């Protein structure tokens, strides 16, 4: 096999950029989906379960049909189904969306494990990469810039949502429902129905994030595939202050920080890897503490959200 020359310390920034692009996509999709849901005034903690189930069903359908894109479609549909279910239960009075979310998380993971057994061993077709590093002669850079179409779609979605929340009828409806159900009812909107749709869209996007995990990177189905990324992404939404572009950059940051531990060890900084692996979480804590306030609620927080009410 051809052995590319080592790139030494440049490997660390390169691995972080490459890691940011490779690892961030599931975060982007779950976080953007969750932003839509939370902007409508609901929180869906079940996203982790949806992510894992999406990973399983995407992989399974890709194996059975031979098409990775059909796998993504199946994951999207199933994720939407999970979202609808969550939204439907929560439309009943006195139902706690956080408790339902936790139950949905367990359900999603459990179903994925149950149905996913036969798919652990076979290899599914992968989603194709777009070689954005074609201009470089350095193989490491070319690999780092192999970008999946879903990543670009994620960026486009973040830009679109950022615009749509402010400038479209549906964006404004969603925000009214999320900020005050009473005001929404007064202008003739049905909060429960809008939240149902918002949760379904959020679930569908989490499903796509799951399909990315199993069909592109790391590109395999096993029961530990998500390592809690779905939950991290829900936290990331708060971290990004319910701002779609913020979600995108926060996802990049988490992806890059996740690559740090491995990259440092690969260049010979071998001590304290457990600490480096904790980097994203330490970062979250620092930013949360730095931006917290005694006098007012979180800036950008939807008023109807049960965690900020």
């Amino acid at each position, binding site marked *: 096999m051809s052995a590319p020359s080592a790139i030494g310390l440049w490997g660390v920034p390169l691995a972080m950029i490459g890691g940011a692009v490779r690892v961030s996509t599931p975060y982007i999709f779950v976080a953007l989906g969750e932003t839509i849901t939370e902007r409508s005034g609901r929180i869906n903690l079940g996203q982790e379960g949806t992510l894992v189930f999406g990973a399983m069903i995407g992989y399974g359908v890709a194996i059975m049909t031979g098409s990775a894109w059909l796998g993504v479609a199946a994951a999207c549909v199933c994720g939407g189904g999970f979202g609808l279910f969550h939204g439907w239960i929560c439309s009943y009075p006195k139902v706690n969306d956080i408790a339902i979310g936790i139950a949905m998380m367990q359900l999603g993971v459990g179903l994925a*494990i149950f149905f996913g057994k036969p798919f652990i061993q076979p290899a599914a077709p992968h989603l194709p990469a777009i070689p954005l590093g074609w201009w470089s002669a350095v193989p490491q850079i070319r690999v780092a810039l192999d970008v999946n179409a879903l990543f670009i779609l994620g960026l486009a979605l973040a830009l679109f949502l950022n615009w749509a929340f402010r400038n479209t009828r549906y964006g404004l409806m969603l925000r009214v429902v999320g900020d005050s159900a009473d005001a929404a009812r007064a202008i003739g909107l049905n909060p429960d129905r809008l939240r149902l749709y918002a949760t379904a869209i959020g679930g569908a996007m989490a499903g796509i994030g799951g399909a990315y995990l199993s069909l592109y990177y790391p590109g*395999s189905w096993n029961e530990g595939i998500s*390592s809690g990324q779905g939950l991290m992404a829900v936290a990331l939404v708060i971290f990004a202050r319910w701002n779609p572009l913020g979600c995108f950059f926060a996802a990049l940051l988490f992806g890059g920080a996740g690559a740090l531990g491995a990259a440092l060890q690969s260049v010979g900084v071998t001590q304290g890897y457990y600490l480096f692996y904790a980097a994203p979480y330490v970062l979250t804590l620092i930013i949360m503490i730095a931006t917290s306030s005694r006098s007012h609620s979180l800036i950008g927080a939807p008023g109807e959200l049960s965690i900020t009410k």
Partner: protein
Amino acid sequence: MAYKLPISRRQLLKSTAAGGTMLAATGLAPLRALAAGPLTVGFIYVGSKDDYGYNQSHAEAAATFKKMPGIKVVEEENVPETNAVVETMESMINIDGASLVFPTSFGYFNPFMLATAKKYPKVEFRHCGGLWTKADPANTGSYFGYIGMGQYLNGIVAGHMTKSKKLGFIAAKPIPQVLLNINSFLLGARSVDPAITVKTIFTGDWNLPVKEAEAANALADQGIDVLTMHVDSPKVIIQTAAGRGLYVCGYHVDQAALAPANYLTGANWNWAKPYHDFITEKLGHKPLGQFVRGGIPEGFVKMSPLGSMVTAPARKQFDATLADIMKGNFAIIKGPMKDNTGKIVVPAGKIYPESAIELEKMNYLLEGVIGSTS
């Protein structure tokens, strides 16, 4: 245990024979003949039993007993290394009637299995990988395979196949078995060329697919051209490494099918051997082994077939070394040896064969490994 009653066993055999079965069959199939009441055997896995790795290697061995009459296999997977395993063992004992339990993950041993064993003195507990001593309860024991020799053979093939003279090792946690595997891989490679180094990345846990893929990419970026691993489910690493054009040496189970052009060979478990021995002993009311170890000669460990790309000199050294290992008590850790901080860890003149108990307490990475135990 006090089951030293060969006579009762014979009487049992006689009564079985008198019941109308053929006496001749008893000598041929001891498992079948000795089964008076069903023996319930419990297997506990830390991950999925279909992980295409460590847990699967145990589950496949367990599955070979499912069809045997007189044996009932109960299993539970995804049991964390916490108090959860105590509950699993207790439910296997109290509800399923298990009288022989195999908790297969490293972290189950102390305190969980030892504490449960004290509570249920009539049940036999055998743990995979634990460092059992005579001070532990009489109804406990441990078994393990000297798979370090398999990693040594991996290292020989890797040493012949590398061009950059830089190998990679992706490991979960710096526990003795893992460190021995890393050191063995290095020594195997250095038996080919003493200039070879092994770069190690610890991911921090047994099953972290995203980190494992990141580690494989980071190693590839650094010019590593042959990779091996010690994580529970090597599939992601093998696929990522193959995608980057690296050669890989496998672990746990044969995974050549995932990357036939890149998979050189692999160190694989054969747990059916120790399980068969334990179950035969239990059925025969003989005392069960308490410190059971075996390597390639004993059939506990086997190698994946060499890939077609493996060169003739590599094959030659592989076969010759394998023949030496088959003679038993093969030693690769020989003093003087320094760790990668320069400290002498094996004094001159000291030789540790594969069975040496000191190797199960290994806490160092040898000079030539780029990595750290903390």
